[in-house]
C-alpha cells in the first residue's frame, strides 16, 4: 500500500464534508477508501496522483468520487482552502487549484499520454496550445472546471461511474457532425473503474463571454416584476425572442444527435411503466400529491402505441444553456444525475428535453414570486398574473422556435409532452418536499394546470 492510500483516507471525512460536489451530506457513510490511484508526477516539488475514492453508504450502494491529489512540502498560502491534510512529509491538496498541475493536464492531453489505466486522449485534428495554466472557474455539483486562456475549458468529473459518460459520448458524436449547438470537444481523460471504462475529464472549447440561460431569464423576470402596470409582452426585459432562439437551438441539437447516433421507437407501454413507477413512489411519500394522482394517471394512460426516440440531453433546463455573443449553447449532457448510467444512455423522446425546458420556464418565474416579499395577498395575486403571462409567453416562444427549426411542433404531440412535463414535475415535488418545502407549490401548481388542460381537451363539454 502506498503512503497515499494509507494516510489520505484519515483526512477524507472532514475534507469531503466541505466539498460542494460531495452530495452525500447527512447520509450515513460507512467507509471511505482510495479505490484506485494513478501517479501522474512522481518526482519533484509537486507529486500528482489521480485518485478515485470509494465511499460506502449504510443506506445504499457505494459511490465513486474523483480527486486530483497534489502533494507539496510547502503549498502556497493561497492553496490553504484546498488542503486535504498531511501525507508523509508533504501536504496533500486538491490540485485543480495548482497552476503546475493544471498545466500538466493540458500537456498530457496535447501529447496523448497514457499513465497506467489513465489515458489522455485529444480529439483527432484538434490543435491544443503548447502550454497554459488553468484558472479555476467554479465548483459545481458534479464537476470542477478550469479554463485555459479563452480557448479551452477542462472539466473534471467528481462523481464517476463505471461506463461511458453520456456527456463525453454525446459531445464526441456532436463533434462528428460539426455541431455549433455545443462547445466542441477537444479531448478527454479516460480510465478504468471496476474493470469498465470510465470518463474522468473532458476538454472543450471555452465559451468565454457567456452567461447562463437561468441568469438571463431571471433578469427578465425581475424586470417584469418591477413594473406594476405592464404586461409581460410590454416590458423592456422581454425574454421571448431569446426563448425562441433557444427553442431553435434545442431543435437543431436534436437533429444532430439523431444524425450522429440514429433513431428508433420504444413501446409507449415501457415509457408509461417508467413514469408510473416514479409516480407510485412519490405518491406514497407526499400526501399533497394524492388529489392529483388520478388526473396524472389519466394523462399517462393516453401513452399508447410506439414513441419515436433518439439520444437526447436528458436533463435539459435553463441552467444547462449558455448565451454567448453568437447565440445559445447546450451544456452538460450527463443526464439526470440520480438516474443509473445505463438508463441515462438509452434513447428517449426528444420531448423529454422540451418538457424539461418548459418546466424550467415555470421555475424561473414562479420561484421569483416566492422569493419576492409581498405586502399583501393582492400584490401576490398581481405578481402571479404577471408570472402566468411570462410563463405562457416564453413557453410558447420556445415551442415556436423549436417548431420553426425542426418542422414539427412539440405541442402537436400534446399527450406525450404533457406526460413528460408531469413526470418532471412529480420528480420536483419529491425533491422540493425534502429540501425546500416552501417551493413544492411550484411543481404542484404546474401539475394542477397540466391536469386541468388534459381534462379540458379530453372532454370538450367542459370548455363550452
Amino acid at each position: 500500500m502506498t503512503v497515499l492510500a494509507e494516510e489520505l483516507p484519515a483526512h477524507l471525512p472532514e475534507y469531503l464534508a466541505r466539498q460542494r460536489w460531495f452530495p452525500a451530506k447527512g447520509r450515513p457513510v460507512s467507509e471511505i477508501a482510495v479505490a484506485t490511484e494513478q501517479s501522474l508526477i512522481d518526482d519533484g516539488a509537486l507529486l500528482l496522483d489521480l485518485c478515485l475514492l470509494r465511499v460506502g453508504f449504510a443506506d445504499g450502494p457505494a459511490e465513486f468520487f474523483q480527486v486530483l491529489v497534489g502533494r507539496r512540502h510547502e503549498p502556497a498560502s493561497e492553496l490553504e482552502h484546498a488542503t486535504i491534510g498531511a501525507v508523509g512529509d508533504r501536504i496533500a491538496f486538491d490540485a485543480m487549484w495548482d497552476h503546475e498541475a493544471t498545466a500538466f493536464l493540458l500537456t498530457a492531453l496535447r501529447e496523448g499520454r497514457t499513465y497506467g489505466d489513465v489515458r489522455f486522449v485529444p480529439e483527432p485534428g484538434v490543435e491544443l496550445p503548447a502550454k497554459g495554466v488553468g484558472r479555476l472557474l467554479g465548483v459545481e455539483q458534479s464537476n470542477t472546471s478550469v479554463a485555459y486562456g479563452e480557448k479551452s475549458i477542462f472539466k473534471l468529473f467528481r462523481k464517476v461511474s463505471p461506463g461511458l459518460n453520456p456527456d463525453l459520448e454525446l459531445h464526441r458524436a456532436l463533434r462528428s457532425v460539426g455541431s455549433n449547438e455545443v462547445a466542441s470537444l477537444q479531448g478527454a481523460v479516460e480510465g478504468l473503474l471496476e474493470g469498465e471504462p470510465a470518463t474522468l475529464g473532458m476538454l472543450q472549447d471555452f465559451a468565454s463571454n457567456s452567461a447562463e440561460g437561468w441568469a438571463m431569464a431571471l433578469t427578465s423576470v425581475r424586470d417584469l416584476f418591477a413594473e406594476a402596470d405592464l404586461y409581460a409582452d410590454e416590458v423592456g426585459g422581454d425574454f421571448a425572442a431569446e426563448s425562441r432562439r433557444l427553442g431553435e437551438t434545442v431543435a437543431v441539437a436534436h437533429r444532430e444527435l439523431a444524425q450522429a447516433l440514429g433513431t428508433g421507437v420504444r413501446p409507449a407501454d415501457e415509457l408509461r411503466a417508467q413514469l408510473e413507477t416514479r409516480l407510485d413512489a412519490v405518491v406514497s411519500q407526499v400526501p399533497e400529491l394524492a388529489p392529483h394522482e388520478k388526473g396524472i394517471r389519466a394523462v399517462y394512460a393516453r401513452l399508447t402505441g410506439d414513441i419515436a426516440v433518439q439520444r437526447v440531453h436528458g436533463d435539459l433546463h435553463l441552467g444547462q444553456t449558455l448565451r454567448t455573443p453568437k447565440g445559445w449553447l447546450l451544456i452538460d449532457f450527463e443526464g439526470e444525475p440520480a438516474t443509473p448510467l445505463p438508463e441515462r444512455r438509452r434513447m428517449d423522446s426528444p420531448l423529454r428535453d422540451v418538457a424539461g425546458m418548459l418546466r424550467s420556464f415555470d421555475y424561473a418565474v414562479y420561484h421569483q414570486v416566492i422569493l419576492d416579499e409581498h405586502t399583501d395577498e393582492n400584490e401576490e395575486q398581481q405578481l402571479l398574473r404577471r408570472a402566468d403571462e411570462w410563463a405562457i409567453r416564453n413557453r410558447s416562444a420556445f415551442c415556436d422556435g423549436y417548431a420553426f427549426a425542426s418542422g414539427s411542433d412539440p405541442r402537436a404531440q400534446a399527450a406525450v409532452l404533457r406526460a413528460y412535463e408531469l413526470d418532471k414535475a412529480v420528480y420536483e415535488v419529491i425533491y422540493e418536499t425534502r429540501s425546500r418545502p416552501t417551493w413544492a407549490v411550484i411543481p404542484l401548481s404546474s401539475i394542477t394546470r397540466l391536469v386541468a388542460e388534459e381534462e379540458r381537451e379530453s372532454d370538450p363539454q367542459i370548455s363550452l
Partner: protein
Amino acid sequence: MSETSEHIVEEPGAEEFGSARALEVEPDWFKSAVFYEVLVRAFNDSNRDGFGDLRGLTEKLDYIQWLGVDCLWLPPFYDSPLRDGGYDIRDFRAVLPEFGTVDDFVTLLDEAHKRGIRVITDLVMNHCSDQHPWFEESRRNPDGPYGDFFVWSDDDTRYADARIIFVDTETSNWTYDPVRGQFYWHRFFSHQPDLNYDNPAVQEAMIDVLRFWLDLGIDGFRLDAVPYLYEREGTNCENLTETHAFLKRCRKVLDDEYPGRVMLAEANQWPSDVVEYFGDPEVGGDECHMAFHFPLMPRIFMAVRRENRFPISEILAQTPAIPSGAQWGIFLRNHDELTLEMVSDEERDYMYAEYAKDPRMKANIGIRRRLAPLLENDRNQLELFTALLLSLPGSPVLYYGDEIGMGDNIWLGDRDAVRSPMQWTPDRNAGFSQCDPGRLYQPTIMDPVYGYQAVNVEAQSNSSTSLLHWTRHMIEVRKRHTAFGLGDFHELGGSNPSVLAYVRTHGDGENDTVLCVNNMSRFPQPVELDLSEWEGCVPVELTGGVPFPRIGQLPFLLTLPGHGFYWFSIKPVEDPA
C-alpha cells in the same frame, strides 16, 4: 457663382480668401479626439436674425474648449435651398447667407485652431440640390459641358435592385424631368439628383471642391452618403468597387497635398461592409480614416432596456478588426433620427415599442428624439450611456446640447425635433438670439422639464453637480488615458448577464490598461470578473483615485448600483522601496 456665355459655371478658388493658421500635423489626432457635432443654425445667433451663424459659433469657442472638445463637426453650412437641412447643396463653394460668408468660416477655423480645436464638415459627395447650376445646365443642355453630370435615363426601370431610402416620402429612385424629358436618378429626395461619377469631369470637379476647403485650412470631411456614388445594373448600387476606387483617389489627394487632414465615411451599413471604407489593411488603410459605427448605437439602448449585455456583445463580436491607421466614430445621438436600419425587424419593433411610444417620435426607419428624453431624463442612465460612449472602442461624437440634457420637440416636422436652439441662459430665446422670439428659425424648447429656464449652460456652469460638469470631468478623465482612444478592446464576460465589462489596453511594457465595468440593469448587481491576467495589480478608480483591493487568484468581486459603472486603471503595485 456665375455663368458665362459658354454655359460654363465659374467657381471661385481658395486664393480669393484668407486661410486659417495651421495646427501642427499630428497624423493620428482623430484616434483619440472627442468630437462635438454642432448645427451652425442652432448654436448661437450673432446678428439677431433668428438663425445661428458662423460668427455666433466663433463667439462660443471658449465654451467648447472648456468642455474639452478636440474637434467640431459641422453639418453642411453651404448655400442651399434647405429642403434637406442643408444636405441639398446649391453651391459647394459658398456659405449659406444666413450663416455668413466664406471669410467668416476662415475666421472660425483660425480661432478654433488658436484654441487647439480642429474643425471638420459634412461634404455631400453623392448628390446636390436640383437648384445647383450644374443640374440646371444639365437639364437644359443635354449636350453641354454638364449634360452628363447626372444619371439620366429614358425610363425608370434601371437599377431596380436599389432600395428606396426615404420610404416615408419617396416611391422611386427615379424622377421625371419635364425640361429634359428624361428621368434622373436620386437615392435620397427627388430634389437631390445623384452626381454621375462615371463621368471623369464630375470626379475632377468634386476633388476640386475638397481642395477648395482644404486650402482654407479645414481639418477634414465627413463624407455624406458615400456608399451610393456609383450605380451598376444587377447590384443594390451600394458599396461598389468603383465607389471605393474613387474614395482611394480622394485619400491620396489628402495624403499627398494635405497631411493630417481626415476623411470620415458616413456609411450606414454592417460593420463588415463598413470596414471596406478604411481601405487596404496591409498599408494601414488607404481610404477613409474614420467611419461611423452605426449598429452599435441602437444596441446600447437595447442592452439597457433588456438589462443584459448581449445586444452590445453581439455587435462588437461581429465587428471586424480595422486597419492600424483607422478609427471608428461612435455616437449616442446626432442630428438625424436614431437610425434602426441596422437592426432586425424584430429588434426594430422592440425599439419602437420601448423608445417611441408616440407615433410622432418615429421618422423614416428610426426614432427622432434626443438622448435625455429617450432616457426619461434619468441621470443615472445619462451617465451610464455617456460613460459607454467615452469608453467603447472608437472616437466619441457628442451632440450639441446633450451635455446639458436638452430635450426635443416632437411636434416639429421631420427631424427638426432634435435641432432646436442651444440653451445658454434662462433669458429670452434661451440666450441663443436677441431677436424677436417670433423670428427664431424654430421655437426654443419651453416645457417645464427640458425648457431653457430649467436646462441651460449658465445654470449648469454654476452647479458643480450638474450634468455639464460631470460630462466635462469624464472627458478630462478620458484624456488622461491613451487606452480609451488607442487601446485594444477585450470583453471580459462574467456570469452576470446584466454586467458589461471590458479592458482597454494600449502599448507594450509601459502600457496603459483601463478596466470598464457597466451595469445595464436598473437594479444593483454583483459581478465576479476573471482578472487573473493582472494578478498582483491594483485597480484604481479613475474619477476619484481610490485604490480597490489587490487582484488575487480568485475572481474579482465588484458590486454596482443600478445603472452604475466603474472605470479603473490597472496598475502594478509599486514596491515600497
